[in-house]
């Protein structure tokens, strides 16, 4: 019945995320507060299924499961959901769960629907067990998850701003957090994401010096562009040159660029190794 347990778990997670998002969205559009136990029950069940799926995938393939676009999007979804559950518990921001679950639904659905996303696992020759590479991958994923959540809160900021400018009072505008809360959170998320990605890039660069040719030029360029983009936005924000709506738009568009950049990054990875070979590590960032 369950021919591929890891994939089945990941598919179940997608269904639960989509159901959770659809339920909360419908309630909000109808002008009602969604039932929190129901909503978070669906999201947490999806998170549990996804955690199981990623773990089983890793056991099945002997790799940290970020070896292709499908796995990258799944892992990114996992980080985003994890972060939003923490933020929801600590900050209690209204509607953050709704919007973050929307991002989780979109990313995880994309992982299933993008043609060729779930290619056979990639292998990089010369796996020498460098533990820093695993740390580099985890940091990079974490930073992208933070940027994903930043895109969500930036979207919420823009919606609230739109409602205030258009003098809309009811519906979702009544439920959104204040501009001040969202702006403060946006700044904090950008800071966290930039620091995490900076460390990840630094580790990747050091490994590249150690092993030139282990990372493709396409990937280096794309990742550097994403990192530089967020760094620039952070600097401009700190100097009060990029504020309010413009800052929120920048965060949203940068994340869209980061997402689109996942495709050329995964396309630039080497061809799969024969079945039975056992690489120790992957050089991803």
């Amino acid at each position, binding site marked *: 019945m369950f021919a591929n347990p890891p994939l089945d778990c990941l598919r179940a997670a997608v269904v639960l995320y989509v159901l959770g998002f659809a339920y909360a969205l419908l309630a909000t559009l109808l002008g009602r507060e969604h039932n929190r136990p129901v909503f978070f029950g669906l999201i947490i069940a999806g998170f549990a299924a996804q955690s199981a799926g990623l773990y089983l995938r890793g056991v099945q393939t002997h790799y940290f499961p970020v070896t292709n676009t499908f796995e990258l999007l799944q892992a990114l979804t996992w980080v985003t959901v994890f972060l939003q559950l923490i933020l929801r518990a600590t900050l209690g921001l209204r509607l953050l769960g709704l919007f973050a679950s929307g991002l989780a639904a979109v990313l995880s659905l994309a992982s299933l629907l993008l043609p060729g996303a779930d290619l056979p696992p990639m292998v990089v020759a010369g796996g020498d067990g460098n533990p820093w590479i695993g740390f580099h991958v985890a940091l990079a994923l974490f930073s992208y998850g933070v940027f994903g959540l930043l895109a969500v809160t930036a979207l919420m900021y823009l919606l609230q701003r739109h409602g*205030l400018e258009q003098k809309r009072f009811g519906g979702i505008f009544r439920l959104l957090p204040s501009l*001040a809360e969202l702006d403060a959170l946006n700044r904090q998320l950008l800071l966290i994401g930039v620091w995490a990605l900076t460390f990840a890039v630094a580790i990747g660069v050091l490994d590249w010096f150690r092993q030139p040719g282990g990372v493709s030029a396409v990937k280096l360029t794309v990742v550097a562009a994403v990192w530089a983009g967020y760094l620039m936005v952070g600097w401009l924000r700190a100097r009060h040159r990029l504020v309010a709506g413009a800052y929120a738009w920048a965060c949203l568009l940068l994340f869209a660029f980061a997402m689109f950049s996942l495709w050329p990054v995964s396309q630039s990875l080497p061809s799969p190794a024969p079945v039975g070979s056992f690489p120790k590590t992957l050089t991803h960032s």
Partner: protein
Amino acid sequence: MPAPDLFLLGSTHRTAPLAVRERLAVPAARLDNVYDLLRGPGGLGLAECLVLNTCNRVELYGVTDDIASLRAQLIERLSRFHLLDPAELDRFSLWKEHEAVVTHVFDVAAGLDSQMVGETEIFGQIKDSYSDAARRGASGPVLNRIFQKSFQAAKWARTHTAIGRGAVSVGSVAAELATRIFGDPAQSHLLLLGAGEVGQSALQALRSRGAQAVTVASRTLAHAQELAGPHEGAAVELARVPALLATADIVLCALTVETPLLTREQLATAAHARAGRPLFVIDLAVPRNVAPDAAGLDNVYLYNLDDLAAIANENLSARLAAVELARTTLAEKARLVWAALSGR
């Protein structure tokens, strides 16, 4: 079990003008006298009773052994107590019995019978009145059950209908908008220009939400100090206002002017100096204090009296639309409570 002889004699904003309600109001110092009148030695000997006294209603709830003759006796006693003509008291009163009393209590607790439909203050007032009656030993099993069920009914109405949603006064709309922009108004700095009544009302609404730092500007310093005093705020002359825009988060404009006081350029300069913090300008004056072309400035949220009134009216319409649903459901809940009390 026979149905209890439950009654209500009251006077509300629906049955009596303010002048009459003022005479019927029961000050705290005379509440003991009213309870004595209802059930004390020499009183009417009611088995249970409760007095609800607010600015919009005075209502006496009770359970008696002889409801047939009670109304006349009650009117006669109360008219002597309030020094009113019995016929006048009777004319401005409402009288209900049995299940209708339960329905009325539910409606009142939910704010359906209030002047401002859906207001929540009445819920606290009913709870206080019930606590007081219980403390006196005046309420009993019938009133205890009815009022406790009314609290549940009120909570249901607030949770499941729109009767309490949205602000319905200009001041509370302004306060809600400030909350949408700044989150906690306690952290915001208010700048009030002028002494208009609507401006004072908006300021009061913001202060009630926690706003503390207030600066008042007027044509003369003395007048500004007079206005700022009750709010423990600072006072400045109008000439200083442009410089203060960079630090004020909420600007309430209520000056009487012939031409706008605040220009687009002044607000644009202030917005730039605020380093990304939004500026909320509420122009409550007619003629307007803020130049109309200031609308659309980035990070400046400009609302005039028409905008606030439109939002308040929209919210009120939504509340009124929800009233029928709430009334129907609460009537059914009241019917079930009455059936249980009557042993059916």
